[in-house]
C-alpha cells in the first residue's frame, strides 16, 4: 500500500494530469503524446459541460431525472444502455484508428510512446467488450424481449435500474481515466504478473479492475433478470417452442451471464486482494500461481464470447425471416444449435492458452471441443441461407448487414478452426492473426448484429424509420472498412508480427500495416455516416413516421403494438396460439388489431432512484479504491448499505393506470390506424410506409 497518501486525495496528485509528464520531460515524443492524451481528456470534460449546458438551457434536468434516470420502464432502460454503448463505441473506434495509424507509420518508431499505445489497446479492448458490446446487447434485449414474449416489464424492474447504474458507473470510470490518467497497460485480459503491484504499482490497473468489476456485477444481475423474466412472464400460450428466436438467444445469453460472469468477479477480486492487501494468488513468489488467473479469466472469457454473439444470431434470425418474407427455416434446429453452443461454450476455455505448458493430450481434447462448436454454428448458417432461399428478399439496411455478416463470419469461423489446431496455434498465437480472427468474429458478428438490430427496431422505439441511404452507406463502409483493416492482419500474423506491438523493425510488414491503416479510416467514415444517418433521420422524422407500428411486416409480438409502444406495452395481454404470433394474428380472420372486450387496471412499478443512487455510490467507491481515498470508499459503501436497507422499508412500489385511461389510449391508436393506408412491400422504404402492411400479406406466406 502507498505510504505517502494524502488523507483526502489519496495518491491523486498533479502527475495524474495527462500533460504533466510532458511538462517535466519536454521531448518531442512526449509533447505529441501529451497533446493527444490531453485532447482526449478535454473532449471528455467538454462533452460533459456541453451536455450539462444543453440540459440547463432547455430546462430539462427534471425531465431527465423523472422521465429517464429514475424510470423502471424496460424500454427506457434499454435505450439508455444503447446510448452508453454508442458513446463508448465512438471513443473505442477513435482509439482503434490511432493504433492503426501508429502501426502504419510504426516502422522504427511511430508517433506514440509504448506506454500510450499500451493504454490505447487496453482501453479499446476493455471498452469494446464491457462498455460497448455488453450494454448494446443488454439494451436491445431489454427493449425487445419483454415485447416479444408479451409481458409488461422485466421480473425485477428496480434491479434493472441498478444494472444500468452499475454499467454507467463503470463506463464513467473509464472516461474519467482520460482526465486523471493513466489507465492500465495490461490489455483487456489484464494478465498477472504484469498487472501485479510489483510490476505495475500505479492507479492504471486499479482503474481497470474496478471498471470491469462494476460491469461484471451489472451483467450478472441483468442475466438473472432476463432469465427469470423469460421463465416466468411469458404471455399465456407462449410455450417454449413458440418463442421468437431472438428471445431464445436472449435466454441462452442470460444463462451464460449467470454462470459465466462469476469467474471474472473472482479473477478481478483476487487480483485486487493481491494488489491491495498483499495476498499471493498470482504473484511470482510465495506460492502464487498466475495460471490460476488465466484459467479463471477464460472460464469467464469463453462463455463471454457466446454471450456476445448469441443475441446477434437472434437478431439476424429475425432479420433473415422478416426481410425474406418467410417463416424462419429450421426453427427447432436453430433452437437446439443455440442451446448446444451455450453448453459447449463452457468446455473450450483452455484453447486461449494452448502454449502454456499443459500436455499435448489436454490440448488435443480442447482443440477438438473447439472445432465442435463449428457444427451448431454451421447449422445456423445453413438455416439462414435456406430462410432466404426462394424468399422475396428486400435489400434494406438490416439485410445488408446480415449478408455482410454471413459471408465474413464464415471466413472468421474458418480461421478459428485453424487456430483451434494446437500445433498451428503454437506458430501463430499472440500474433496479429489472432487479432484478425477475433475481430472477424466480433465486428461482422456482434457489431453488425447490433447495428442491424438498431435499424430494425429503431422505428419501434421512436416512431420513425431510420433514413435508408445514409444507413446503406454506413453499412457498406463498415463491410469494406472491416475487410481492409483486418484481412491484412491475417497476413501480418503469419509473417510473425506480434499483437500489441507499438513499433516494428521489419520492412516487409509495411504495405500490410498501411492498408490496415486506410481500412481504419474507412471505418471512421462509417461511424461518421452512422451519425449522419441519425441526424438526417431525426431531421426528416415527419416523413418517416410509422404510427401503425409495423413498418417491416413483422412476425413477432413487438410489431403488434403502436410505435413507440405505451409504457404498459400491451393494453391487454395477448393470447398466443403458435409461432410467429403476430403474423398468425394478421393472417387469421380476426384482424391485426382486435378490439378487446374489456380493459382492466394495469399496475406498473413506480419510479425509483435506486439505480441512480447505486450507480453513483458504485462509481465513488471504485474511484476511491483506485486512488486510495479510503474515506470516500467508506462513505460511499455506507451509503450503498443504507440505500439498500432503506429500500426494503418502502412500500409504495407500484402505481396504477386505470382501465379507462388504457381504453382511451387504445381507442386513440385504433382510430389512427383506421386512417392509415396499408402499403405493400414495394413501398416499404418510401414515406408512404406508415407502419401498416397491406393485407393479405403479399409473399409472406410459406
Amino acid at each position, binding site marked *: 500500500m502507498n505510504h505517502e497518501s494524502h488523507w483526502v486525495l489519496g495518491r491523486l496528485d498533479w502527475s495524474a494530469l495527462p500533460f504533466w509528464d510532458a511538462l517535466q520531460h519536454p521531448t518531442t515524443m512526449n509533447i505529441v503524446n501529451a497533446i493527444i492524451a490531453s485532447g482526449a481528456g478535454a473532449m471528455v470534460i467538454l462533452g460533459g459541460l456541453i451536455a450539462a449546458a444543453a440540459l440547463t438551457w432547455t430546462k430539462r434536468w427534471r425531465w431527465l431525472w423523472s422521465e429517464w434516470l429514475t424510470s423502471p420502464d424496460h424500454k427506457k432502460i434499454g435505450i439508455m444502455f444503447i446510448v452508453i454503448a454508442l458513446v463508448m463505441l465512438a471513443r473505442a473506434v477513435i482509439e482503434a484508428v490511432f493504433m492503426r495509424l501508429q502501426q502504419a507509420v510504426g516502422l522504427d518508431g511511430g508517433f506514440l510512446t509504448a506506454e500510450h499505445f499500451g493504454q490505447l489497446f487496453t482501453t479499446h479492448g476493455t471498452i469494446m467488450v464491457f462498455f460497448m458490446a455488453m450494454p448494446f446487447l443488454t439494451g436491445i434485449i431489454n427493449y425487445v424481449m419483454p415485447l416479444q414474449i408479451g409481458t409488461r416489464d422485466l421480473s425485477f424492474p428496480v434491479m434493472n435500474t441498478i444494472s444500468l447504474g452499475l454499467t454507467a458507473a463503470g463506463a464513467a470510470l473509464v472516461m474519467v481515466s482520460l482526465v486523471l490518467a493513466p489507465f492500465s497497460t495490461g490489455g483487456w485480459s489484464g494478465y498477472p504478473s504484469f498487472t501485479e503491484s510489483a510490476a505495475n504499482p500505479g492507479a492504471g490497473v486499479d482503474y481497470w479492475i474496478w471498471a470491469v468489476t462494476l460491469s461484471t456485477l451489472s451483467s*450478472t444481475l441483468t442475466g*438473472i433478470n432476463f432469465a427469470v423474466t423469460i421463465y416466468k412472464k411469458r404471455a399465456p400460450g407462449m410455450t417454449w417452442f413458440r418463442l421468437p428466436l431472438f428471445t431464445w438467444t436472449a435466454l441462452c445469453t442470460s444463462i451464460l451471464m449467470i*454462470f459465466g460472469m462469476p469467474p471474472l468477479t*473472482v479473477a478481478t477480486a483476487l487480483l485486487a486482494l493481491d494488489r491491495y492487501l498483499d495476498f*499471493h494468488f498470482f504473484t511470482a513468489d510465495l506460492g502464487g500461481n498466475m495460471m490460476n488467473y488465466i484459467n*479463471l479469466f477464460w472460464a469467464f472469457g469463453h462463455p463471454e464470447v457466446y454471450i456476445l454473439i448469441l443475441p446477434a444470431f437472434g437478431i439476424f434470425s429475425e432479420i433473415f425471416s422478416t426481410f425474406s418474407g418467410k417463416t424462419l427455416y429450421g426453427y427447432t434446429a436453430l433452437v437446439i444449435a443455440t442451446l448446444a453452443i451455450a453448453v459447449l461454450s463452457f468446455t473450450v476455455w483452455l484453447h486461449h492458452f494452448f502454449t502454456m505448458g499443459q500436455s499435448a493430450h489436454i490440448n488435443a481434447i480442447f482443440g477438438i471441443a473447439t472445432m465442435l462448436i463449428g457444427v451448431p454454428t454451421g447449422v445456423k448458417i445453413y438455416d439462414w441461407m435456406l430462410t432466404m432461399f426462394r424468399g422475396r428478399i428486400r435489400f434494406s439496411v438490416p439485410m445488408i448487414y446480415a449478408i455482410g455478416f454471413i459471408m465474413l463470419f464464415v471466413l472468421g469461423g474458418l480461421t478459428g478452426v485453424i487456430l483451434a489446431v494446437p500445433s498451428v496455434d503454437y506458430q501463430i498465437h499472440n500474433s496479429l492473426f489472432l487479432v484478425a480472427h477475433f475481430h472477424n468474429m466480433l465486428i461482422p458478428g456482434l457489431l453488425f448484429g447490433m447495428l442491424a438490430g438498431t435499424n430494425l427496431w429503431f422505428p419501434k422505439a421512436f416512431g420513425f424509420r431510420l433514413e435508408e441511404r445514409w444507413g446503406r452507406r454506413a453499412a457498406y463502409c463498415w463491410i469494406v472498412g472491416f475487410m481492409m483493416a483486418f484481412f491484412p492482419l491475417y497476413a501480418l500474423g503469419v509473417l510473425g508480427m506480434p499483437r500489441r506491438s507499438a513499433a516494428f523493425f521489419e520492412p516487409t510488414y509495411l504495405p500490410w500495416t498501411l492498408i490496415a491503416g486506410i481500412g481504419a479510416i474507412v471505418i471512421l467514415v462509417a461511424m461518421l455516416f452512422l451519425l449522419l444517418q441519425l441526424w438526417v433521420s431525426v431531421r426528416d422524422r415527419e416523413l418517416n413516421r410509422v404510427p401503425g407500428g409495423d413498418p417491416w411486416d413483422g412476425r413477432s409480438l413487438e410489431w403488434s403494438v403502436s410505435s413507440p409502444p405505451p409504457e404498459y406495452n400491451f393494453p391487454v395481454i395477448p393470447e398466443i396460439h403458435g409461432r410467429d404470433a403476430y403474423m398468425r394474428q394478421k393472417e387469421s380472420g380476426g384482424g391485426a388489431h382486435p378490439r378487446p372486450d374489456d380493459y382492466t387496471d394495469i399496475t406498473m412499478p413506480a419510479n425509483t432512484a435506486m439505480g441512480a443512487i447505486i450507480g453513483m455510490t458504485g462509481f465513488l467507491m471504485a474511484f476511491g479504491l483506485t486512488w486510495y481515498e479510503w474515506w470516500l470508499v467508506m462513505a460511499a459503501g455506507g451509503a450503498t448499505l443504507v440505500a439498500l436497507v432503506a429500500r*426494503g422499508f418502502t*412500500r409504495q412500489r407500484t402505481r396504477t393506470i386505470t382501465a379507462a385511461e388504457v381504453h382511451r389510449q387504445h381507442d386513440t391508436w385504433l382510430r389512427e390506424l383506421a386512417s392509415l393506408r396499408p402499403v405493400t412491400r414495394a413501398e416499404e422504404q418510401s414515406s408512404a410506409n406508415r407502419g401498416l402492411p397491406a393485407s393479405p400479406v403479399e409473399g409472406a406466406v410459406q
Partner: protein
Amino acid sequence: MNSTSTRHPGLNLGHAHGEAHEASEELVFGFWVFMMSDLIIFGLLFATYITMLGGTAGGPGPHELFELKSAFIETMLLLISSFTFGMASLALKYRSDRKVLVGWLVVTLLLGLGFIAHELYDFHKMFSEGGVPSRSGFLSAFFALVPLHGLHVTGACIWLVALLGQIAVHGLDTPTKTGLMRLAILWHFLDVVWIGIFSIVYLGGIA
C-alpha cells in the same frame, strides 16, 4: 398439496397467504437463480484453494493453524441456526402469532452473530501464529474462501435485522414475508457452503 399450489422449490407459504404466496413465485425463483450464480463463486474459490494447498512457501500449513474443535463449534452454531430459521419459516407459514416468529428469528440472529464472533476469534489466533494472508499462496486462498463465507453470514445478519425492523414497522405484509423466504434460502445456502468448508478445508486439512 397439488401441483398448482407449488410456486417454487422449497417451503411454500400456501394459499392461505394469498398475495404473498403468488408474489413469492418470481421472487423466490429469482433468488434461487442468484444462489446458483453465487455458488459458482464459492466453487471457484474452493478450486483455487485446492490448487494452492501446496503453496505454503515454507510458512505455516493446515496442521499448524487449524483447530478441529473450534471449527466444530462453528459448524454446530451454524447448523443449529439453520434449524432455528427452519422453525421461523414454519412459524411464518402456520402461526398467526408474530411473537413466535420473531422469537425464532432473534435466536437465529444470535447464533449467526455467535458464529461470526467465533470465526473472528479463530482468525485472530491464526494471525498471532503467523498465519497471515500475505505469508503464502495457501494462506491467501484460505483467507479468500473462508472470510467470504463469513462476509456472507454478516450480510445475512444485517438483512435479518432489517427484516425484523420491517416487521416492527409494517407488520407481516407481503414484502416482509417474501423477504423472509429469500433470506431463509440464503441462510441454508450458507450452511451448505460451510459444510463444504468444514469438510474440505478443516477436515481435509488436518487429515
